[in-house]
């Protein structure tokens, strides 16, 4: 995709012999923003899968060892509980590993998980730089900055989403709150917070990766052990963002999804996209 060229109207018109009415399109995402957006998918998946394999080696949350099994890891408890109670899992060969076998590379794979985690982490940092450059070149950063009215407007949007399914059921109109900005306040909070979470993940990651040379960085997060807890929960920020993000994009329709691929939207007149 070449950079979005502001085509001359005459030039476009000559390529349409019947002089069809043109479609109004509005530029939404810079090429570099689109690339880094999609690259985040495999990179974050690799980071989470390998990260949980690293977590397995020394869980940050643990209870007193069970006298019968010797287990201290709540995630292993979840696996054992599932294999005992969920139909179809009773025959599972290694219940304590169920969770790790399904949301990580697997248990007992620390060396390979570390190598994959470093590779993905460096790619994640590079990808973050691509995103920042894209935001700068396309001017998209201005649309992400928080506003004073964000809190009130975010509540309005929240109310809209909560009421929408009920309004549909009752066949009542449920107007979308109006904003004359690229994103609504709720989106802006999310799209601003997620890059911040990415930045914090990188910083907490470095502070637990190099806790001696970068001990000042670990100190910002409350020391080495607390930085590990930060790093773990920052992963959940991504997971908890991605789920509603995907649902809302799919609900909003093709134009919104397409705009993250092609860069433009045909919703020139309205600004409430996802």
């Amino acid at each position: 995709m070449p950079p979005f060229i502001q085509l001359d109207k005459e030039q476009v018109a000559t390529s349409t012999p019947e002089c069809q009415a043109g479609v109004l399109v509005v530029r939404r995402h810079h090429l570099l923003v689109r690339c880094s957006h999609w690259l985040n998918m495999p990179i974050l998946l690799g980071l989470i899968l390998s990260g949980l394999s690293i977590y397995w080696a020394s869980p940050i949350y643990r209870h007193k060892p069970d006298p019968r099994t010797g287990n201290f890891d709540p995630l292993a408890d979840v696996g054992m509980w599932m294999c005992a109670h969920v139909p179809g899992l009773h025959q599972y060969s290694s219940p304590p590993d169920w969770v790790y076998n399904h949301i990580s590379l697997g248990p007992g794979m620390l060396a390979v998980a570390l190598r994959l985690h470093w590779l993905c982490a460096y790619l994640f940092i590079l990808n973050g730089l691509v995103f920042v450059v894209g935001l700068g070149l396309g001017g998209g950063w201005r649309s992400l900055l928080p506003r004073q009215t964000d809190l009130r407007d975010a509540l309005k949007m929240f109310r809209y989403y909560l009421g929408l399914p009920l309004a549909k059921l009752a066949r009542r109109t449920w107007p979308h709150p109006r904003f004359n900005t690229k994103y609504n306040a709720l989106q802006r909070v999310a799209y601003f917070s997620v890059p911040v979470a990415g930045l914090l993940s990188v910083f907490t990651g470095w502070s637990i990766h190099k806790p001696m040379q970068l001990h000042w960085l670990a100190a910002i997060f409350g020391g080495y052990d607390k930085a590990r807890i930060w790093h773990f929960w920052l992963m959940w920020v991504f997971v908890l963002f991605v789920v509603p993000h995907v649902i809302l994009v799919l609900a909003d329709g093709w134009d919104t999804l397409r705009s993250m691929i092609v860069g433009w939207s045909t919703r020139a007149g309205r600004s409430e996209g996802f």
Partner: protein
Amino acid sequence: MNLEDEHSAPAADKTSSAESVSPPRPASFFQERPPAVMEVAPQLLRRWTRRDVLLFGMGAIAAAAGGGVLLPQSTLERLGVIHEKKNWPKKEWLLNGALRIDDDVAEALYSRNRLVPTYTKSQITPLKNNYNGATPDPSYIPEWRLTLEGLASGLSVSLNIRNLLASFQLHEQITRLVCVEGWSGIAWWAGLRFDDLLNAYRPMSQAKWARLESSVNLGPWGNPDPYFVSLDLSTARHPQTLLATHLNGKPLRVEHGAPLRLLVPVKLGLKNIKAITRITYTGDEPADYWAKRGYSRYDGI
């Protein structure tokens, strides 16, 4: 989807953004600009869409295939993607490359003058016996000797613990030991500085590395399993790199590597070899127990 018609923008809005010749000047540098609107023929839009969806789709397939190949063999087998042993030579090359870059970054971050944080006695935490495999029988301790090789003198030196304690000053420090697995422990150590040993028994001039070895280490079933680590001499000369003889004010016990272990807080715990029996100085990087098993070799933290 009737979302679309519910809030088709007011006509006034549309005309203003599409046709206004000079959009209103933004109030500040940080203020969001009105979007650039342009008119494009529908066929052209379809062509752009087709091209970009194809390009991004191919990129996605390439990323999924490339990323999938990078996953470990056993994960792919468990997922049912592959059923027999597959070898992608480039995969190891790529993953080892990432490991090597990370080691280079660690080496660049390291400074002999940067001290690691020290703690107070109230911050000391329990330190578990993390012997790799079985804990050796303490019967080796009375006979224990440290052999130094690769010295400038060309000789091989053998020392016992009384020689070491008599000829070197002991230094105390309360520092954190960080395991590659993620857990850590703060402990009160005492020992001689590795730097002092290097000054007393000079390594040969071309030496850049030390190979530290313990012949008494055992495997998980009590089988002999000598442990060995590589240590760059720059790290060995760090003022907080000790050849520790004491833990919590008492001589080391067998589970912590009596009578002499390495304490190098700027490295991962796995470099902190217990019950050292031999130190060999070399010009080339020596082998490392865990590097052979897929971990990094520099391990600077």
